[in-house]
């Protein structure tokens, strides 16, 4: 059986998400340098804008995919016994999904 995220696809996903994250980080650093929000309310209303929300959510999707490919690569190298893998892989996947869900319920309802 071939998993969905393997071989070339996993490699491409990791590179494309890396590029997105790079742009994402530069954008936010620039935003805080040149248009730093003065207080929490400004920051909150900025973050609640539709396009900013989309950027952040996409950023987290990219981060989680990137982390999954990277961590799985490390585990395939170092975690040899199948039994240990059977624990480690779902554990990491579960943790990443939990982070994703937490992000979703935090950011999506922002008004």
């Amino acid at each position, binding site marked *: 059986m071939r998993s969905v995220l393997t071989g*070339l696809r996993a490699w491409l996903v990791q590179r494309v998400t890396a590029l997105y994250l790079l742009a994402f980080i530069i954008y936010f650093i620039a935003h805080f340098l040149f248009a730093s929000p003065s207080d929490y309310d400004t920051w909150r209303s900025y973050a609640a804008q539709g396009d900013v929300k989309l950027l952040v959510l996409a950023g987290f999707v990219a981060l989680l995919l990137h982390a999954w490919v990277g961590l799985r690569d490390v585990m395939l*190298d170092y975690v040899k016994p199948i039994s240990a893998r059977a624990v480690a892989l779902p554990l990491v996947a579960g943790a990443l999904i939990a982070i994703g869900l937490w992000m979703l319920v935090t950011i999506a309802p922002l008004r």
Partner: protein
Amino acid sequence: MKISIFRYDPERDSEGRMQDYEIEPEPHEAMLLDLILRLKGEDDTLTLRRSCREGVCGSDAININGRNGLACITPIRALGERAVLRPLPGFPVIRDLVVDMTQFFKQYVSIKPYVVDPGPMPDKERRQSPQARERLDGLYECILCACCTSMCPSYWWNPDKFVGPAGLLQAYRFLADSRDRDTKARLDDLDDVYRLFRCRTIMNCTEVCPKALAPSRAIERIRLMLAERAL
């Protein structure tokens, strides 16, 4: 100068040890292999592989001061006062500096290191333009000494699943060959999580290749071929 050599005799030793030798290079001795062979003349239990003694056969690949290389083309002058010689890292040791290369050659054979063309046999040779032939430069020169593969951490972790730099350089050598008709099957074979993509672009392979080849570039080209095919 002082030469420290890894010694292991499976019939006598339970594990390997380092043995120190004091030896002064004679004027006619230019390469490290000359010194090792003189030591072997004095102590014939010292075991190593060597054949052509001029960097063509790839038999005498060993780890020299932490870096893989061919003893026969490593100048004594470049070593300084002390040389530590070990068998190729990551390979099972048979005896002293001799390693078991079975897995290495298994990976090499797995990439089908020959031109595949199911069409009818040509009357004479399979012709190739000079331009198409040029694309094989930097690929065909590999002597399979295993210096690169044995320096590759990805290969250390998964020698049975990751083809390794030497095998992948050869995989690309046949992907790049205008006479080969097996491109699709070759690429399919490499497109999984282990065979090609265990490469983490560490580039030790290119760094140590005694023939100055670039397995990491060949690996990059295979990735691009896969990407071009998919996009």
